[in-house]
């Protein structure tokens, strides 16, 4: 039984934590939250120099060629630091789409640039409010020209290219969905920044008007690829959420120890103690489910779809729970702009929506459990 990260893997995670503690303090997150820029370009370059952007990219394509386990630990530190960079879009999604469906030429063209941070990729998916299902994908792509509108695309304003889900002809079925790679700097693309609940991560509407697009993966295999890549991204994002949950819990604990009321630390009141204990419980459940997902992802186990959903559901619940109650423990001060509590609250709710809602994943988890006819 060795259900644990190796010492080398942990060492890499510690290195990332130290680096981010130094280069990405809350002030750096606030700079993006409050400023005109939509990401921290210097931090992004630094992370690239550390090799963190190409952890799981094979060496031939310019990556470190390490496993997903290392990438999980890097993602956890990104979440803990609320890093205001396109990590989830470019590393957890765009890179994975290329690895999963890209042609050799596309991999050679893009993976090295993604690993070096020179190129930023993202995934353009939702077209309207509500759950994203095959029938909601109505963007059209014919003769290499893509037309349609995608909303709230993470890092849409700064991305070099986007993986875009579209159809060859109007329709509703999953088999009609194909993926395309569209360079966002080119013609026929209009990017419109959109205000979101977490301005520390930029989002934009992408309007495509006969924009040049090349196919990514086999035609009509788009939806299957999306599901495969989302399972991987779900595990990796879960670690981002786990990192955020742990940090929010630590903040609340530290404040409860320092803050005095009625002549005693507020952390000596059972109402606060038990609130924190419950936060610890959900953070622990999330981490253990995350390990389950990491194991399935790294070993390519058949349980991956179920393990990914478990990790995603537990991590989303934990980060939202810990970020929400971190504000409650801080009381009025927790609701000030000056305190950092809202940074975690914003991010927890953003990550709960990126990659599909909690309710969608809850439904998927049980559907998949049933498919495997296993109940944990």
């Amino acid at each position, binding site marked *: 039984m060795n259900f644990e990260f190796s010492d080398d893997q942990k060492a890499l995670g510690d290195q990332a934590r130290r680096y981010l503690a130094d280069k990405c303090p809350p002030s750096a997150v606030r700079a993006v939250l409050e400023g005109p820029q939509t990401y921290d370009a210097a931090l992004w370059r630094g992370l690239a120099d550390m090799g963190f952007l190409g952890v799981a990219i094979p060496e031939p394509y310019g990556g470190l060629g390490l496993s997903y386990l290392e990438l999980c630990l890097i993602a956890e530190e990104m979440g803990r630091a609320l890093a205001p960079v396109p990590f989830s879009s470019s590393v957890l999604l765009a890179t994975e789409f290329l690895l999963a469906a890209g042609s050799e030429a596309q991999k050679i063209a893009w993976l090295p640039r993604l690993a070096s941070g020179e190129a930023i990729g993202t995934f353009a998916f939702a077209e309207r409010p509500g759950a994203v299902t095959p029938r909601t994908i109505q963007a059209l792509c014919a003769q290499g020209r893509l037309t349609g509108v995608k909303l709230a695309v993470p890092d849409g304003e700064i991305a070099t290219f986007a993986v875009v889900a579209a159809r060859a002809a109007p329709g509703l079925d999953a088999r009609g969905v194909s993926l395309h790679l569209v360079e966002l700097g080119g013609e026929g693309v209009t990017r419109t920044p*959109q205000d979101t609940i977490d301005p520390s991560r930029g989002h934009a509407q992408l309007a495509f008007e006969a924009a040049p697009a090349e196919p990514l993966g086999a035609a009509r295999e788009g939806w299957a690829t999306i599901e495969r890549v989302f399972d991987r991204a779900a595990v990796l994002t879960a670690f981002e959420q786990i990192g955020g949950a742990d940090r929010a819990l630590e903040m609340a604990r530290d404040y409860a120890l320092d803050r005095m009321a009625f002549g005693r630390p507020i952390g000596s009141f059972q109402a606060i103690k038990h609130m924190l204990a419950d936060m610890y419980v959900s953070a622990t459940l999330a981490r253990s489910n995350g390990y389950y997902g990491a194991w399935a992802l790294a070993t390519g186990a058949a349980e991956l779809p179920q393990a990914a959903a478990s990790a995603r559901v537990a991590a989303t619940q934990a980060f939202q729970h810990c970020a929400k109650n971190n504000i409650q423990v801080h009381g009025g001060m927790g609701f000030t702009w000056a305190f950092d509590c809202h940074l975690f609250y914003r991010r927890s709710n953003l990550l*709960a929506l990126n990659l599909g809602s909690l309710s969608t994943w809850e439904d998927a988890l049980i559907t998949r459990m049933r498919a495997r006819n296993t109940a944990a």
Partner: protein
Amino acid sequence: MNFDDTAGEAVFRAEARRWIDANAPSHLKAGLEASGFGNLALDGVDPMAEAKAWQAKKAAAGWACLHWPREYGGRGSTPIERVIWGQEEGVYGALGGVFIIGHGMCGPTLMAFATEDQKRRYLPPLASGEEIWCQLFSEPAGGSDLAGLRTRAEPAADASGDWLVNGQKIWTSGAQYSDFGILVTRTDPAVPKHKGLTMFFLDMRSPGIEIRPIKQANGQSGFNEVYFTDVRIPDAQRLGAVGDGWKVSLTTLMNERLSIGSGMSTGFPELFDLCCRIETANGLAVDDPAVRSKLATWAVRATGLKYTGFRALSALSRGETPGPENSIGKLVAGPTMQEIAMFAEDLQGQAGVISDPDIAAAHGRFQAMLMRSPATRVEGGTDEILRNIIAERVLGLPPDIRVDKDVPFNQIPTSAR
């Protein structure tokens, strides 16, 4: 059992409705209906000017502060008449936001502790909105421990009998536009904390007062920090005896909990409306059994609060005092609104991240709820304080162990480490 007015109530309602139809600023109606969460969506007009104009008009016709005595600018109405007026005033009531604290908390305190001359001088312009009042109680070190305040009031060195105030208050709504404020201070740090407090009222333009807005987590600024440096207050503006400040402030706080607790919004009607318009993977949200099973619990909380309010109104209508059941209002509404906001985002999927009112579903109402609801769970008593209040005052359970009870204030530990 019925929801009908008594004969007397019906007469009053008809009279109120007639006057409102004839006099309300109907040009603001649309904007007021679109407003929410304390910010008025009134384009091209000065909300403060409109608010003062409407309040002055009401006062002139005898419709201001209805439950106050006539001689102080009120109408001498019964509590139920006040409620009926609120129902009839409807959205125009939102204009009165800037007066809530003055009318709901400062007025009653003056009524109870000011001299007759002071009441005749200050209450009528307070009722008519000509002068605005604020409340200066909370402090950075205080939080839920209100009585732990540190702002000092000391006798001036001269023989004037005046007091000199030094310290800082926080979470003061409307300080920037208030003419007067009621202020609780510590006049004796050598006695247990509840015993060394004294209440005053003061001119908010007094020299030595500095007001700084607090930027909130949701980006708005509804509150202020107020700094006091040798601010001079005549002893005549003391409310209650020296050392009685806690007793005096309880008058104010009781009124605060009442006004905040009643008729809290849960966001359920808005959510239900969204579910009738948005789709999940299983079709229209309201037709999705998974959605319905979540909605049901919030639905009965919303109706539960609504009819709990009706029970209170019935008591008022009978001239009785409402029971303790009203104390659950904010404790239920706050967390429910937060849960509802999160679920409404969930239903919107990726689009749920968009907060721009011009693009987001329901004019970004749920994104605003998401960012505002954490404050609801804290302001005017945290969820935890409210549970203590219900446990102690309603269920009669013992108070928490108080390590600072009989300790001189200046000997209460102020740091944990």
